[in-house]
């Protein structure tokens, strides 16, 4: 059974139909890339799945349960975490705090426990910190040590992206939605991140949906590729199948017939 599935998903912004009846599904442990030209509705798709927008029609099923219409925090708590296309950290909180916030939905100490600092609350706080450090250690030495107490805004662009992934990991999701994780990275960092995405699956057992423009990354990580154009799913299959699909080439490069007609 697919862990995440959308059926006939619809979303319109005024007259713009950003998503038009998209059917999508992903099995546990799979890595699926969503590609498509700018404005194809990829990020809108993520926004609807993660609850930032409510769908106008269709369903989002997580583990067989309809989660459409739930708030983003409920969806994150259910087990879908995401990153943002334009990195959105909590810039003035420290690296460690950023990740610790991610643990919020997996912990429960309330106001009174926090004021009284009960043994269970103390234990929980210690666990949060330990988990956060553990997650940061996943990225090698980049985000630990002296970095832990630095505010997030001092990080380099690539590190901000890594921290955002770490924060998403801290919500202990089953499905990870990565929105252009390599945007703005240099070639070496991109190669590293491709490896990292593989490790996210092999070491942490995440199911991953990734929006990506860099075709080497798409080729390197994905089991399956889904192509969107103008909010419609135009192709689906392995990288090889999709990259030779005529509709896809047309979506990216335009119609050869036009050229012929013109000449």
């Amino acid at each position, binding site marked *: 059974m697919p862990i995440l599935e959308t059926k006939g998903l619809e979303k319109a912004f005024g007259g713009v139909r950003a998503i038009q009846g998209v059917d999508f599904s992903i099995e546990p442990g799979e890595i699926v890339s969503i590609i498509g030209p700018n404005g194809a509705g990829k990020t809108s798709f993520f926004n609807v799945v*993660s*609850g*930032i927008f409510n769908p106008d029609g269709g369903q989002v099923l997580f583990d067989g349960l309809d989660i459409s219409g739930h*708030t*983003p*925090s*409920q969806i*994150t*708590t259910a087990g879908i*975490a*995401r990153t*943002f296309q334009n990195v*959105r*950290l*909590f*810039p*003035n*909180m420290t690296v460690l*705090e950023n990740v*610790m*916030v*991610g*643990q*919020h*939905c*997996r*912990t429960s*100490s*309330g*106001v009174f426990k*926090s*004021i*009284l*600092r009960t043994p269970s*609350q103390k234990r*929980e*706080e210690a666990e*949060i910190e330990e988990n956060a450090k553990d997650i940061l250690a996943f990225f*090698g*030495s*980049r985000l630990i*040590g*002296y970095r832990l107490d*630095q*505010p997030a*805004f*001092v*990080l*380099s662009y*690539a*590190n901000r992206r890594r921290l955002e992934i770490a*924060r*998403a990991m*801290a*919500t202990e999701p089953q499905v990870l939605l990565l929105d252009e994780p390599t945007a703005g990275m*240099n070639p*070496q*960092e991109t190669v590293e991140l491709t490896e990292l995405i593989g490790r996210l699956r092999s070491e942490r057992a995440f199911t991953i949906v990734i929006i990506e423009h860099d075709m080497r990354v798409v080729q390197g990580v994905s089991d399956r590729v889904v192509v969107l154009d103008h909010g419609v799913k135009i192709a689906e299959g392995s990288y090889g199948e999709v990259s030779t699909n005529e509709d896809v080439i047309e979506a990216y490069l335009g119609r050869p017939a036009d050229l012929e007609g013109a000449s």
Partner: protein
Amino acid sequence: MTATVAPAATPTGTTGSTVDLARVIRVGTLVGVGMVYVSVIGLLATFNRRLVIDPWLSLGYLVLFAAPMFGGLQFIKREKLEGLEPEPASINDVVQAAIVGVIGGLIAALFATIVNTFPDVRSVFPNWSPELVELLTLGLGVGPAFLVLPAISAVVAAAAAGTSFLPERMRKALVVGLLAVVAVSLFQPVVDDFFDWLEVVPDFLYTPTRAIGVPGAIAVFVLAAGLSYFRPRGKNGLTRRLGSEDESVRRRSTIITAVIVGVAMIALPRFLGGILNELLVNVGFFALMALGLNVVIGYAGLLDLGYVAFFAVGAYTTGVLTSPLSPTWDPMLTWWQAFPIVLAMAALAGLFVGTPVLRMRGDYLAIVTLGFGEIVRILLLSDWLAPYFGGAQGLRNIPGIPIFGTTVNVNTPQLMVYMVMAFVLIAAFISWRLENSRIGRAWAAMREDEDVAEAVGVDTVKAKLTAFITGAVIASFAGALFAAKVGSVFTNSFEILVSIVILVIVIVGGMGNIPGVLVGAVVLIGILGGPAQPGLLQEFGEYKLLAYGALLVFMMLKRPEGLVPSKRRQRELHQDEFSQDAWLDRTPSAPGPSVAEPGRETF
């Protein structure tokens, strides 16, 4: 004018060897405008009644000649850049400062002449009077004023600029000494109360006008300047230990500081008389409310401008439940019996205000909460609810707080201080624990970016309501104590201005930082005074709001993070500096990025 062209490109922006005429005229005009402003709004006349150094200097003239002083200081400001030697002090700065003083003084003298020539505009400017001319010309008449005012201003400005020739240490000592003289003079009631057991000291210091006398001033100056000069240099021990890297050292010195402050606070009310204890109680009320607002605005980032409503809920609930004169329903509970109900009512009020504004942000939230604050006050005042809350008559005969066989009320100011202090401690404790918990982190995340907080699993609805309710409960502490202290509640204690003043306390003190908020309450309420409460500087009276405004503008320009800022907020407002420091911090021993890819890891 040509002089301004060539050397203006020096790195510090100030010219070393020439007179920057445009700048001198600009600053001089500002100084003159400042002097005229101080005169025309009546500060000079009002403050002139209070002497600072008997018989030489009144507060009025101190304020008047502060303008040329600050004007003069403009010319010795040096931008400190790392790796660059700041330009040394030069006689040129002093000359420029003196010219500024002359310009300022001339403008003031001109103004005096105008007032003297056209005395008939009093309906527009109530302070436009022959007395003002008299004051402004130092009683010498309009003609000599054109000599005397520029001369004095020039001397003041030049002296201020001339301090740059002194070694840094001596300069600091001078400033400390002068500030000490002014402070000791203005805070006469405190000093007087404090030396109750040693009457010789106040008798020596003060003349019968409550101002410091000349011998006293000299003694205080020498003492303060001497202490400052001979103080061990560098960061003093305590500050260093409090910021120590070593956890145990830091913890130990924090405890020691806390104990010392605690003992001082316990001893303090014993030394103080009724008026000062009253003042401390007022500081406490506002500190409580500011702590509560700090949770809402400093931690959770929700701009609540109607916060006084929760104070009103606390006070009125206490009044209705405890007063034998409550109309309609008077359960006549004791204060302690009523207290849990008060907290519950405040929490409910927090929920009621919080729920409808969940979807609002920033400005919209501010306007709507402002409206809520007024709605609460108007409802309490209305005839419709008068059968329950007394309307314009308010609630009277509210009993004090029974404790250990005595009653804490308006007649026991010392006990009231302890009571309020205890609750301030509780509120500070609650804020501190919440700030450093899962909930505090959720608030911080929400303040940074609400949408993202929601997307990483923080239930922002719950977090917002928690913040509103916590804030409301803390404000109701203040309300309950206020009702018991005053013995009656009227709606005029819950004006919009109170909300604004609490907000100013939080901003000036340091948003999101508990010590900051407490310092803010002491500075604003203790020294300047609250909306209806006199502060130490009673002379400010009608100019209180002006002082608030001026302080707020000054802080926003010079220190937007507040007097005692929170770490996070300081970082936020000085991001570029922190980025730089973080870059310098990169320890060479740090493994990985800085070694493996030195060019790429920017910071």
